[in-house]
C-alpha cells in the first residue's frame, strides 16, 4: 500500500492530514492511470457505432460495468451508470414509486419505508413523494444507530412498495443488518433498496445473498472519480423504474445521456481494486482506528463514541467531547481536515439529525467530530491526530473562553 500514498506525511508538507474519507476520498493513482487515456486519445463517444473511437470507449465502459457487477455479485446488465449516489438514490426511490402511480391498472400501493438516519438525498426524495401523496414510514434507530428488525417487519403493509435503508451511515459508520432486512422484504414481497455509497468497497456486499433489489453506488467514496455512480437494478425478479429523465435511450432507457467513458472506467477500476484489497484494507484500518482510539482515550477526558462499535466500518469514528464545541475544535485543529458531520448542507449550524436520532442531546451533538480514515491514512497520521485532538480538547475543556455556553 505504501507505494501509492499521496498523503504520506502530508501535514509536514503544509497541508492538513486528510481525515474526512466519508465526505470524499482521494482518487487512487491506479484508477487515475486507467482513466487518463479516455480523456485524450481514446476520447470517443461510447454510443458512436460507426468507428473505432466509439467502439473502444464502449468496450471500456462495458468492462467497467462487469467489474462493478462482480464486486456486488450482480450481473453486468443490472448495473446502470449514473452521475453519482444522489442521482441513484433519487432514481431508485422516485423511480419505483412513480411507476406504481402511473401503473394505473389497479395498483393501490403507495407506501414507502425508510429510516430517519438515511442520507439527506434519500429523505428529500421521500419527502417529495410524501408531498405527491405517498405514505411514508420513517423507522427510528436505537441508541447505537441500528434499526429494529421487528419494527421494520411491523411497518410493512400490503400497500408497501419499497423499503429503503442505507447500508452504512455516513456520519457514524454503522452497518445496518442488510441480509436480515433483505430477507424480511423478500418474505413480504416488497422491493429493498439500499444506499450503499459508504459501504461499497468497504464491506462485502452481495445482492443475491442479501436479497437486495436496488443498490446505490458512488465513485468518489471509494477512490474512484467524482461525477459517477451506479444503480444496481435487479432483473430477476425484475424491478421496473420510471426514469428521472428522458433522452437518447442509453442505459436501457433508465438513464439517458452520453456516458462519461473516463469516469465509468475509473469506477470500474475502483471496484476491481476494492474487490482485491478490501479484506486486508479493512484489517489495516481497524488496527489503525483501535490504536488511535486507545491513544486518544488514554489522554482525553469525557469522550463519547457515537454509534455502535461492533457493527461499524473500520474507517469511521464519531466522537463527542463533553464541554467542547465541534466548530471550535476544528478551528483549533488546523493540521487536520475533519468534519463535524455530513458534508452536504454546507455551513449549516443545525446539529446533526443523525446524532439526534440516536437520542444524543444537543450539547453532545454539537461537540461531535467525525474522523474518517482510509486507504492513504498512515499510522503516523493517526498518531499525530490522536495527539493533536487530545491536546486541543484538553485546552478547550480547561480554558474558560472555550466553554460551550450553558444550554
Amino acid at each position, binding site marked *: 500500500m505504501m507505494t501509492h500514498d499521496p498523503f504520506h506525511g502530508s501535514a509536514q508538507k503544509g497541508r492538513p492530514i486528510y481525515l474526512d474519507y466519508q465526505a470524499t476520498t482521494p482518487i487512487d493513482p491506479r484508477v487515475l492511470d486507467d482513466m487518463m487515456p479516455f480523456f485524450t486519445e481514446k476520447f470517443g463517444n461510447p454510443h458512436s457505432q460507426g468507428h473505432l473511437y466509439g467502439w473502444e470507449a464502449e468496450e471500456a465502459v462495458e468492462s467497467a460495468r462487469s467489474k462493478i457487477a462482480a464486486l456486488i455479485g450482480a450481473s453486468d446488465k443490472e448495473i446502470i451508470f449514473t452521475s453519482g449516489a444522489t442521482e441513484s438514490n433519487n432514481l431508485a426511490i422516485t423511480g419505483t414509486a412513480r411507476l406504481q402511480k402511473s401503473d394505473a391498472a389497479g395498483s393501490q400501493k403507495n407506501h414507502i419505508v425508510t429510516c430517519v438516519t438515511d442520507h439527506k438525498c434519500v429523505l428529500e426524495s421521500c419527502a417529495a413523494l410524501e408531498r405527491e401523496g405517498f405514505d411514508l414510514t420513517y423507522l427510528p434507530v436505537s441508541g447505537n444507530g441500528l434499526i429494529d428488525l421487528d419494527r421494520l417487519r411491523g411497518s410493512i403493509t400490503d400497500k408497501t412498495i419499497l423499503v429503503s435503508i442505507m447500508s452504512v451511515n455516513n456520519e457514524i459508520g454503522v452497518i445496518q443488518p442488510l441480509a436480515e432486512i433483505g430477507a424480511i422484504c423478500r418474505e413480504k414481497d416488497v422491493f429493498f433498496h439500499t444506499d450503499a455509497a459508504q459501504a461499497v468497497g468497504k464491506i462485502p456486499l452481495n445482492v443475491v445473498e442479501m436479497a437486495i433489489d436496488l443498490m446505490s453506488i458512488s465513485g468518489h467514496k471509494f477512490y474512484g472519480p467524482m461525477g459517477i455512480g451506479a444503480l444496481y437494478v435487479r432483473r430477476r425478479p425484475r424491478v421496473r423504474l420510471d426514469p428521472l429523465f428522458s433522452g437518447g435511450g442509453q442505459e436501457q432507457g433508465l438513464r439517458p445521456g452520453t456516458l462519461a467513458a473516463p469516469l465509468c472506467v475509473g469506477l470500474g477500476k475502483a471496484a476491481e481494486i476494492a474487490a482485491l484489497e478490501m479484506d486486508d484494507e479493512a484489517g489495516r484500518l481497524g488496527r489503525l482506528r483501535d490504536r488511535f482510539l486507545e491513544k486518544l482515550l488514554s489522554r482525553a477526558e469525557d469522550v463519547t463514541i457515537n454509534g455502535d462499535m461492533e457493527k461499524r466500518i473500520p474507517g469511521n469514528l464519531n466522537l463527542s467531547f463533553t464541554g467542547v464545541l465541534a466548530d471550535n475544535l476544528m478551528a483549533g485543529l488546523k493540521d487536520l481536515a475533519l468534519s463535524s458531520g455530513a458534508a452536504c448542507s*454546507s455551513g449549516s449550524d443545525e446539529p446533526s439529525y443523525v446524532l439526534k436520532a440516536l437520542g444524543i442531546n444537543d450539547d453532545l451533538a454539537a461537540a461531535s467530530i467525525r474522523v474518517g480514515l482510509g486507504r492513504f491514512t498512515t499510522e503516523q497520521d493517526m498518531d499525530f491526530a490522536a495527539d493533536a485532538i487530545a491536546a486541543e480538547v484538553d485546552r478547550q475543556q480547561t480554558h474558560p473562553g472555550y466553554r460551550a455556553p450553558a444550554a
Partner: protein
Amino acid sequence: MGIKHPVYLDHNATTAVCPAARKAVACALDMTGNASSVHGPGRAARKVIEDARDRVAALVGARSADVVFTSGGTEANNLAIRGLQQGSGRTRVLASAVEHTSVLKAAPDIETIPVDSEGVVDLLALDTMLSEPSSANGTGPALVSVMLANNETGVIQPVAEVAAVARRHGALVHCDAVQAVGKMPVDIVALGVHMMSLSAHKIGGPAGVGALVLAEDLAHSTTLSALILGGGQERGRRAGSENLPGIVGFGVAAEEALKNLPKITNLAGWRDRIEDELGRHAGVRVFSGGAPRLANTCCLTMPGIAADRQIIAFDLAGIALSAGAACSSGKVEPSHVLAAMGVAVDEADTAIRVSFGWNTTNQDIYAFLTTWDDIYARAKAVIKDVEAA
C-alpha cells in the same frame, strides 16, 4: 501508440478533451475535497468550482450565480422542461420537430413546431400554435424549447425571434445550445431565452458534466423544481456532490472555446470546400445549404449508398464519422431531423454527417474528400455491375 487512430470527423458526437482542459482535469483529480466540506481541502474545492462557474457563465454572457451544473446536456434539457413543469405547473410544452431526443421525450404531449425544408423553425406556425388552445393542455402558459444549432444539419435557428414570439404570448423559452456554444457567439441576454442547456464534452471538455444556465428574469422566480433532490447543492436546483474534475474541465474548456471562437468560425472554409467539391456529383444533396449553419457541420448524401455502408467504408479507410446522432446505440433509425424537413426516407438513408473541431487539420479534410470519391466510385461500379447483370 498501439492502434492507429483514424481521422476524427465526428466532433458533434464528442470532442477530445483539449490540452488546457486536460491539464485542469488532471490537477483536479489530484485534489481531495468535497466542495461542501468546511475544512481547507473542501474550501479549495469550492473555490475551483466557483471559478469554473464564472468561466461557463462568461461563455454565454450569463451571471455566475445562474449557472446550474448538471451531469450533461441530457440532464440539463430534462431539468429545464420537467423541472419547470413540476415546479410551475406549466404543462404545455412546444418544441421544434428537429430537437434532440432528450428534449422531445422530456415530457408527454410535447407539441412539435414544424420546420421548413431547410430545417429552420417556422415562426408563423409557432405564433399560431401559441394563439390557439392545444387539445391536451388548453391555452395555459407554455414553455417553448428551440435549439440554437442542430446536431445533424448544423442549422442555426432564429432563437431570438422565437423568444420574441414566445414572450409576446407569455411563454417561457428554453434553448438547447449544446451544439452551438464554442462554434458561434452565444449570448443568453441577446437571445432573450429563459434557460439554456450546455454540455462540456461537445466543446473540448470532459464527458459527464453540463449546465443549465438561467436568465436573470427566471432565476429570480422559484419556478424550477429540482429533478435530483438531496444535500441542497447548486442552490437547491441539483443535488449531489459536485463533479469537481468535470466542472473544472468544463470551465477551462469554456474559456478556451471563447478564446478560439474566431478560429472555429473559419472552419466554414472547409465545410464550403467539401460541399463545393462533392456537390459537383450529380444527385449529391447538401442539407440545409440555404440556411444559416454552424461552420463545422456538413450533412450530405452519397446517392444510392446507404449511410451505414458509407460509415463502414469510411471506417475501413481510417475516417471516423457518423450517420447522425450518437445516441441510443445500435439502432439505425431514420433521422427525425431530416424527416421533419420533408426528406424522403430513401434519400435520408444515404446521408452522413461530417463534423470537425478544434484539432481538425487540412489533411483530415483532404483524406475525407479523396476517400469519399473513392468510396463513391467503387459503389457506383458495383451498382452498374448489378444493373448490367
